[in-house]
């Protein structure tokens, strides 16, 4: 090397090669030649660097600058800019999700920073095709040390003391395995390497073979010395051609150098190695099947004992370890067992490589000390979940493993802790799943895999997994039966206990573990015929419809808007949700979160389109109503004129009932009128939809309070046959810190209700709002409009975790509200009986809590005071059930709300139904609408014994759609807002509707997931 000043390491792992790394490498070479730099700068093709999804990747040394997603053109830029002129090409650097700032240095990227590379020590650092580079990094020194300074027994002792356990999955202590094989009687012994990596998504063994093949060769030679063997075999699957090529090359080089063969390094030790290729049967990863396959026989397991340590390959004592296990050996011998044992947990030492895949920002290979909390792997290394979605679970250990839900993000990833949760370490496949994954469908996928891969030798595995697959499949198709869950558990446990080999014994794990952690999802499929994640095709017409708690036919009304058929669109909407205009303003639109268009660019602006639609309403569009003189005679009472109660009344009215609604406050609407400010929901819009419901034959009596003006018993005495309880969660929780009783301290619901119903409320000069939900933001923005000089929201977690809608938080800030996150109030400072400030402490994010979020913990910083003459607590809502139930014995939820059946709203008292916040706890408007609808159907069924919900029949819209056309390519239309200075001092509506032109274009962005080929 004549004055080489820089190395460009191009990742040539199979992942990067597949995305074009070799072309990039060639482009580097030719660009260097073009600039005459070929003698100053070397290009080296290395093994896997880890971040496979960002490939092709390259690192430029000596600076250690990381470049990603490279094309041949980019390579030319890097040569012309960075290598020639020293200017880092920032556009090709890594960017942390959500930030624009480029991070240039490899070591500063979170993905690399938190890793500890032992197994992958050479991957991405050396050229795997040159034995010299391996030797330069202490390669074969461990073998030399073992052969010249250690006895076989002391080698085994060192491995035992290191605490290394098998990385193939089961975690058997490696040193013990070596000792058993050494002690086994026999003249001929074999050293085997299991490189039959077969778990979907796991590729750490392949990467080691591709990126550092000599580490495996050296370790196998050491193992051979330790157990007294002279022949080894690597069993690798034929689907890994690059691994086979690099390993073959490495074995050839090692032989040429005399590091394999006779009399290695003059010590008299003989060892040679051969490759055996398998054709990729999953069962051949099982040790006895693997050995039979090497022998050239059909790869089927046999019962153990005898164990391979005594009778293995060709009935000779054989030592089988996994690739990753071997990759640890040389470092243990060189650096000592104590060093190795210093990493990891008490029972699991060292590091583990994981193939991080699925719904995570940085996918690829990561190596961490065993015992690292799962949350750190997912969030700090993996960079969290893309598109702001929520973490749902991680599947660890592939088809033999299980899932870990968000409640356990803190679990240290080690053999024992994972097992306690029903998962296994396995070979290290780690698939992250977000809210869009259906756990039943996921279990079905893995079951299908093991069913395909079952060798068929033993009945439990061959037939049992087939039966399980049939059951899970019918659950996914909406044909599940009530007893299916128990059948799956019983069958799964039998298969686990009676199968011949590991494949069958672990095959039921994905099903058993998803039932354990996500039983409610199975139940939703079976009982409600609903797939909560919006995945299973038979249950999901379109993800938006399935995500809507009221099941509004969204693609239907959107496509009708697209054809300017606004009245029809509205009727279609009101067929499932009477509050089209209300929801056009305040809905939290889970439909948009699930919109498939979001995967393309941004989700369809469903709420914006709805707003445009309701603006077009001239005469009230009432959907179909059935007359029924019989039903009209029956007495039904609805308590609470909020969205739940009014929806229940609306759907009952459509069946011909004429229910009576009792409302405690002077105006109907519940939280819609009492707390949601008029700048979000103009009162006339709400009043119009309530009038519609009244015209359908619903009588609303205001100023009539349950417990004061009437009781449940008095309703029954008056002849009410059914009662719907939709009283909400109307009481705001108060502060529980010193000073809470001072003048000037209030609570958000009371504050908002007073203003919205009475028209005025005292507002301070410096207002502090405590909390991060919608009530907090509503209170803050209301205070701004009522003339507060400064308004500050204090929230103890981070901004991302605020339950309030993002748009609302942003607009609050635009209007001048200060947002202080990661602070917790500890005391209201009082002077002369009046509050003058809030004493706060800074919080920092600690471990993951059961909600899957990092728990805020108090720091050691000095508390500080935020000045305030008014403090508004917005920390939650509740319901005083004692007052409303008045002695009626009703079953409650653990959170002290009314327990109601999910499907019918029926409570433990047959004539009493409940829904909305009173049953679910504080939730959203559209959830209340859905609950009201279900209760209406439940009440009808209770009274008549039949289900008459005609609106639930699927409705085909006859709008035009060409399934072969490309989707339109323009971005989402954003809604215009009233300028800040025109809204800060009044309650005018902030959002402005689309123009017709914009709306028609936006409607065309819908991908029409609901479209099905019409049967001729």
């Amino acid at each position: 090397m004549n004055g080489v000043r820089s190395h460009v390491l191009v990742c040539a792992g199979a992942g990067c090669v597949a995305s074009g790394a070799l072309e990039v490498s060639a482009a580097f070479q030719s660009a260097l030649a073009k600039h005459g730099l070929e003698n100053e700068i070397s290009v080296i093709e290395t093994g896997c660097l880890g971040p496979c999804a960002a490939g092709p990747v390259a690192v430029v040394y000596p600076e250690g600058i990381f470049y990603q997603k490279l094309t041949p053109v980019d390579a030319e830029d890097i040569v012309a800019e960075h290598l020639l002129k020293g200017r880092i090409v920032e556009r090709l650097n890594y960017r942390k999700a959500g930030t624009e700032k480029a991070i240039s240095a490899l070591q500063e990227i979170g993905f690399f920073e938190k890793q500890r590379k032992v197994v992958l020590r050479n991957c991405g650092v050396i050229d795997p095709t040159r034995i010299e580079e391996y030797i330069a990094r202490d390669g074969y020194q461990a073998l030399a040390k073992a052969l010249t300074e250690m006895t076989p027994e002391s080698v085994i002792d060192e491995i035992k003391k290191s605490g290394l356990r098998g990385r193939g999955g089961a975690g058997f202590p490696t040193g013990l395995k070596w000792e058993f094989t050494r002690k086994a009687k026999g003249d001929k012994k074999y050293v085997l390497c299991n490189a039959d990596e077969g778990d979907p998504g796991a590729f750490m063994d392949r990467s080691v073979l591709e990126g550092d093949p000599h580490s495996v060769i050296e370790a196998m030679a050491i193992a051979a010395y330790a157990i007294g063997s002279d022949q080894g075999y690597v069993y690798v699957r034929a689907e890994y051609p690059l691994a086979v090529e690099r390993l073959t090359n490495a074995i050839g080089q090692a032989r040429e150098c005399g590091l394999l063969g006779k009399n290695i390094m003059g010590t008299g030790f003989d060892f040679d190695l051969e490759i055996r290729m398998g054709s990729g049967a999953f069962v051949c990863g099982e040790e006895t099947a693997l050995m039979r396959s090497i022998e050239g026989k059909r790869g089927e397991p046999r019962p153990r004992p005898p164990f391979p340590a005594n009778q293995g390959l060709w009935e000779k004592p054989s030592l089988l370890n996994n690739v990753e296990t071997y990759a640890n050996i040389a470092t243990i011998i060189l650096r000592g067992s104590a060093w190795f044992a210093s990493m990891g947990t008490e029972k699991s030492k060292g590091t583990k490589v994981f193939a991080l895949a699925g719904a995570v920002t940085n996918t690829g290979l990561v190596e961490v000390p065993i015992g690292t909390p799962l949350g750190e792997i997912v969030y700090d290394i993996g960079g969290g979940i893309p598109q702001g979605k929520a973490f749902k679970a991680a599947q660890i250990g592939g088809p033999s493993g299980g899932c870990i839900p968000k409640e356990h993000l803190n679990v240290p990833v080690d053999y024992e802790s994972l097992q306690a949760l029903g998962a296994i370490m396995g070979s290290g496949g780690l698939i992250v799943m977000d809210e869009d994954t259906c756990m039943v469908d996921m279990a079905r996928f893995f079951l299908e895999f093991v069913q395909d891969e079952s060798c068929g030798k033993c009945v439990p595995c061959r037939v049992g997994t087939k039966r399980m697959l049939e059951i899970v499949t019918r659950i996914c198709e909406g044909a599940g039966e009530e007893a299916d869950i128990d059948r799956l558990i019983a069958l799964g446990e039998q298969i686990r206990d009676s199968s011949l080999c590991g494949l069958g014994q672990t095959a039921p794990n994905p099903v058993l573990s998803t039932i354990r952690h996500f039983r409610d999802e199975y139940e939703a499929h079976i009982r409600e015929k609903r797939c909560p994640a919006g995945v299973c095709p038979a249950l999901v017409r379109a993800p938006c419809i399935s995500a809507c708690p009221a099941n509004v036919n969204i693609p239907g009304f959107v496509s009708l808007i697209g054809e300017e058929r606004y009245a029809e669109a509205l009727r279609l909407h009101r067929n499932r949700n009477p509050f089209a205009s209300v929801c056009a303003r305040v809905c939290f639109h889970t439909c948009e979160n699930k919109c498939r268009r979001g995967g393309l660019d941004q989700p369809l602006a469903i709420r914006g389109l709805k707003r445009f639609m309701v603006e077009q309403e001239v005469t009230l569009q009432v959907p179909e109503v059935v007359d029924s003189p019989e039903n009209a005679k029956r007495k039904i009472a609805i308590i609470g004129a909020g969205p739940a109660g009014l929806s229940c009344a609306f759907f009952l009215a459509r069946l011909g009932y004429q229910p009576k609604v009792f409302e405690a406050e002077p105006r109907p609407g519940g939280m819609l009128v009492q707390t949601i400010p008029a700048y979000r929901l103009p009162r006339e819009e709400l009043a119009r939809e309530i009038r519609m419901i009244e015209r359908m034959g619903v009588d609303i009596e205001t100023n009539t309070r349950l417990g004061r003006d009437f009781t449940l018993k008095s309703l029954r005495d008056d002849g009410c046959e059914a009662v719907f309880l939709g009283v909400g969660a109307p009481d705001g929780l108060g502060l529980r810190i010193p000073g809470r009783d001072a003048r000037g301290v209030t609570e958000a619901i009371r504050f908002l209700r007073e203003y919205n119903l009475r028209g005025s409320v005292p507002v301070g000069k410096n207002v502090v709002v405590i909390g991060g939900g919608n009530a907090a933001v509503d209170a803050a923005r209301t205070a701004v409009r009522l003339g507060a000089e400064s308004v500050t929201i204090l929230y103890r977690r981070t901004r991302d975790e605020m339950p309030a809608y993002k748009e609302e938080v942003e607009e609050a800030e635009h209007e001048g509200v200060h947002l202080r996150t990661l602070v917790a109030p500890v005391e209201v400072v009082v002077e002369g009986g009046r509050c003058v400030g809030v004493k706060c402490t800074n919080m920092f994010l600690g471990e993951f809590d059961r909600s899957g979020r990092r728990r805020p913990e108090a720091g050691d910083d000095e508390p500080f005071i935020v000045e305030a003459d008014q403090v508004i607590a917005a920390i939650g809502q509740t319901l005083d059930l004692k007052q409303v139930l008045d002695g009626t014995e009703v079953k409650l939820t653990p959170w002290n709300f009314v327990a109601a059946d999910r499907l019918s709203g029926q409570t433990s008292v047959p004539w009493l139904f409940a829904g909305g916040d009173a049953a679910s706890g504080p939730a959203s408007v559209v959830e209340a609408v859905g609950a009201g609808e279900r209760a209406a159907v439940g009440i009808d069924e209770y009274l008549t014994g039949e289900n008459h919900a005609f609106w639930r029949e699927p409705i085909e819209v006859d709008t035009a759609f060409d399934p072969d056309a490309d989707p339109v390519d323009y971005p989402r239309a954003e809604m215009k807002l009233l300028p800040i200075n025109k809204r800060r001092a009044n309650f005018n509506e902030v959002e402005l509707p689309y123009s017709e032109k914009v709306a028609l274009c936006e409607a065309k962005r819908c991908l029409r997931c609901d479209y099905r080929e019409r049967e001729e």
Partner: protein
Amino acid sequence: MANKIKSPKDLLKLKEKVQAELELRKGVKEIQITVHMGTCGIAAGARDVLGTLARELESAAIGNVTLRQSGCAGLCDREPMLTLTDKNGEQFRYGNLDGKKVHRIVQEHVVGGTPIVELMLTD
């Protein structure tokens, strides 16, 4: 391809021989020499300076220096130019370089530890 390794000693010898090749990948060293490679620098011969530097460092078997490039330092008439940052983080700027001067800088400043005042840029 390497020669046959007949003993652990052979292995060590080979390791020492090839180790230097991989030094670059260990990151930035305690002394850094930055050659200014703006268009002006390149036009004035910075490429040759960089090449000479790399060869000089290698033939002097110096392991604690990282060679870097950067853009124009703003003194285009003094190009080719380099900035040497020593162990203590102190910076020395040399201008109007040629092969001879580079040789002296490596020998006297890098190896000898004595900055060459007369070659340094002054205000």
